[in-house]
């Protein structure tokens, strides 16, 4: 089945810094989603992005489907950005299930 790899596994930033999180996937996918898992365990949908670039405030994401990767940019990071960021690929055919990467744990220090 499809493999989803995320890097880096851990990232520590000072408040105000910018960061880029990467997601590689091994096969063609129907779609790609980015999630933020907050300290309470909730999965918050950030972007649903099969290709191209989307922006939402300080966050933006770019997916290059032909090269099988997606990037999540966080600018001017805040302590509330801390948590685990997951990317997940929506598989082709079948039941449209999501295959998750292992996540990037982001810690933003004040």
């Amino acid at each position, binding site marked *: 089945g499809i493999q989803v790899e995320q890097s880096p596994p851990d990232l520590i930033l000072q408040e105000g810094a910018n960061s880029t999180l990467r997601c590689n996937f091994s096969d063609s996918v129907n779609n790609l989603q980015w999630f933020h898992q907050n300290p309470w365990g*909730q999965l918050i949908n950030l972007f649903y992005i099969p290709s191209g670039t989307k922006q939402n405030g300080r966050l933006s994401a770019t997916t290059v489907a032909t090269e099988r990767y997606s990037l999540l940019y966080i600018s001017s990071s805040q302590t509330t950005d801390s948590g685990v960021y*997951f990317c997940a690929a*929506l598989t082709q055919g*079948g039941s*449209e*299930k*999501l295959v*998750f990467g292992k996540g990037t744990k982001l810690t933003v220090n004040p």
Partner: protein
Amino acid sequence: EPEVTQTPSHQVTQMGQEVILRCVPISNHLYFYWYRQILGQKVEFLVSFYNNEISEKSEIFDDQFSVERPDGSNFTLKIRSTKLEDSAMYFCASLEIYGYTFGSGTRLTVV
């Protein structure tokens, strides 16, 4: 904005007991799912449900697990005889053209 609602938020159960995790997905979505996340690990697919039947299930989803949509709104996951290794966060989700919406999860602790 429509939400996926899960209850309870946290459940503690003794090994060997049956548990039922409940979800109310977004009503006009077509696909419904259960996913599981063992503490500190990635989120894993358990089962998908479409048109009132299971469309796909993972290796994790063995005979101890079952799903139902008994009344057209609720969507339940039952674990018949819980094991210690069933301790995890269980997420319900539904899918439409704009992507997945996840519930806030049920943290199951088996003691």
